């Protein structure tokens, strides 16, 4: 069953990549080194083979990364021969574009929006590929494959363009752009099946390993130099893996004995909690946390 589903999802994604490359002046692919963006890069390669991927990739760098992720990013960029644009949150802070919260619970996650929009404007990107999936979160479940952003980078969820058949409306004014989501119809399990079937290399963080963690808000946070522990929080050793990887300050690990991709496919197939529910402190803000962030131009 998975093969037919995967084949149709893959064809749909490839066709979206080609459509964007044909109709936009300056597309860019958002690349965090996380599994969805890695799958996107592989799909882009499949779309244009034997030619090169005809657009650069962009990493919005919070400066609070897991070290393993940065190594993986640089290695992947070399392997694929793509151009990498780094949009740095630290530079936005230094330039006074954003102000950083302080304190042990502070995260740079919300600051990324400003850095992202500044970079889109600076480079004149008119189409921005994101790895968002509709199964991730209830606001994302509503979003079009071509999602229009006005000159403020805002999404207007109550007034989305109709999107009929596979005829995508690429038109926009200067200064506006479209976010494009080739993985819209993929689920977490589809991603893992693709990774399995295509032997896609991933950062080691996704596989079970032993690590120092501490409990916070019912989640396991990794001990790392970007996170301050609070009074009463105690580090302990556990066998964990990451289901999602974002900023090191707000991504939690899950206890897991899944050491291989096969193990992970099996674990994902029976998972009872969504990946964001299990691992993202940023989604717990409110009933409409993601919608509010997306409206302002977040990924």
């Amino acid at each position, binding site marked *: *069953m*998975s*093969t*037919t*589903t995967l*084949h*149709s999802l*893959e*064809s*749909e994604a490839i*066709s979206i990549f*080609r*459509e964007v*490359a*044909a109709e936009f002046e300056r597309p860019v692919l958002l690349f965090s080194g996380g599994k969805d963006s890695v799958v996107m890069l592989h799909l882009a*390669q*499949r*779309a*244009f*083979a*034997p*030619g*090169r991927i005809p657009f650069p990739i962009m990493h919005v760098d919070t400066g609070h990364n897991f070290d393993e992720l940065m190594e993986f990013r640089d290695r992947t960029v070399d392997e694929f021969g793509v151009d990498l644009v780094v949009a740095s949150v630290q530079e936005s802070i230094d330039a006074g574009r954003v102000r950083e919260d302080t304190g042990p619970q502070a995260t740079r996650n919300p600051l990324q929006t400003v850095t992202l929009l500044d970079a889109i404007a600076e480079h004149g990107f008119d189409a921005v590929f994101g790895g968002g999936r*509709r*199964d991730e*979160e*209830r*606001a*994302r*479940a*509503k979003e*079009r494959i071509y999602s229009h952003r006005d000159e403020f980078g805002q999404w207007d*969820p*109550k007034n*989305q*363009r*109709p*999107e*009929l*058949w*596979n*005829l995508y*409306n690429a*038109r*926009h*004014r200067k200064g506006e752009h479209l976010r494009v989501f080739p993985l*819209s*119809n993929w*689920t977490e*399990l589809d991603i893992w099946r693709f990774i399995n079937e295509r032997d896609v290399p991933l950062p080691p963080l996704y596989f079970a390993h032993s690590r120092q963690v501490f409990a916070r808000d019912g989640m396991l946070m990794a001990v790392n130099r970007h996170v301050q522990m609070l009074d009463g929080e105690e580090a302990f050793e556990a066998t964990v893996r990451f289901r999602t990887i974002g900023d090191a300050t707000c991504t939690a690990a899950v206890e897991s004995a899944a050491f291989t991709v096969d193990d992970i496919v099996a674990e994902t197939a029976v*998972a*009872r*909690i*969504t990946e964001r*529910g*299990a691992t993202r402190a940023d989604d717990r803000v409110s*009933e*409409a946390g993601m*919608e*509010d962030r997306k409206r302002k131009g977040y990924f």
Partner: protein
Amino acid sequence: MSAPLEPLRFATVGSVDDGKSTLIGRLLHDSKSIFEDQLEHVEAVSKKRGNDYVDLALLTDGLRAEREQGITIDVAYRYFSTPRRNFIIADCPGHIQYTRNMITGASTVDLATLLIDARNGVVEQTRRHSLLVSLLGVPHLVIAVNKMDLVDYSQERFDEIRAQFTEFAQKLELRDVTFIPMSAFEGDNVVDRSPNMGWYEGSTFLNHLESLYVASDDNLIDARFPVQYVIRPHTTAHQDYRGYAGTPAAGAMKPGDEVVVLPSGLETTVAGIDTFDSLADGSSSVAEARPGDAVTVRLADNLDVSRGDMICRPHNRPEVTQDLEAMICWMDSAASLTPRTIYTLKHTTRTVRAMVTDLRYRLDINTMRRDEDATTLEMNEIGRAVLRCTEPIFVDDYRRNRVTGSFILIDESTNQTVAGGMIRRTNT
């Protein structure tokens, strides 16, 4: 195990409050496809609102405005799988003002589920959505007669609604219609067979979805390959490579096939069909490309072929024309369809400009009467129009091919997608 079934895309449509979101919630819940944190969230929100039941509609009504008003504004997509099949659901809004979002959801599905409240029977929105399902050429339709618990699970009432719908649907082009009595709220005949309706001998809703065969809905006869993107690597390894990337809209394409390229009319043969995998393992071609497969076609001769061209068979060609006749769904609230206004028209991978030269009639959704005096179409209205394009496009009747028979119109001043069009060949 039998051969794997392709994933099924289906939409839920019907009037407000007929229970579309509840049906999906029930389907996900009873097939154990809801994650614990999602259910906890829905339970907590239901409780906070003072509901004495868990509102499963909250699973798909994801926008703030939807939750505040308790309605569905835009399509929500949900995914679930059973051991037999994977499903993609488009939960469509029922309000008339959001019809364009319903069309968005229903334009790509294999099956539509139209809910009817057993107490109310066929209402205006039932007729509107049936007409749209018919116009959009959705191959399969399930009429879910819902809220049977509120009419004492009466077979008589179910038969009455079936007769009422069948009578009305005679004027439509619905190919495969199945009626299922259910209660999404109580769970009757959704996943589990209802103990309350022993008189019903058909499938449960899930069972019907799991066993529906949709592969035969593809048009495998009329080979149509719209060129999407030209791949010319100019690298040392692939100095002379020239491939035409795209996805067959219909028909199968094989190496050695004689083909013609439109609009030039030049004939050649297919030298090979590539995918990333076939290139990687050094094979000269994949065996064939079928509708939906994203591939790259190489031709035997060096012709001038670019995006927007169409590759097909010499003896089976689409109509090459600047003049179209089509059913139009108007979707813009800011401006109405006005003859002589120039719009951008997107059809397959080809973009031209077009104007409506004649509005033949506007269709009255309720009576199906044709108003031939109409001079304009407003938001959510449907009519038949004649269009003239700046350049030829390569079209088939929508009923024969949903890809080469459809187009959208874009307003050139607002960039909004203002209409969807379904081409009628002029002699039909």
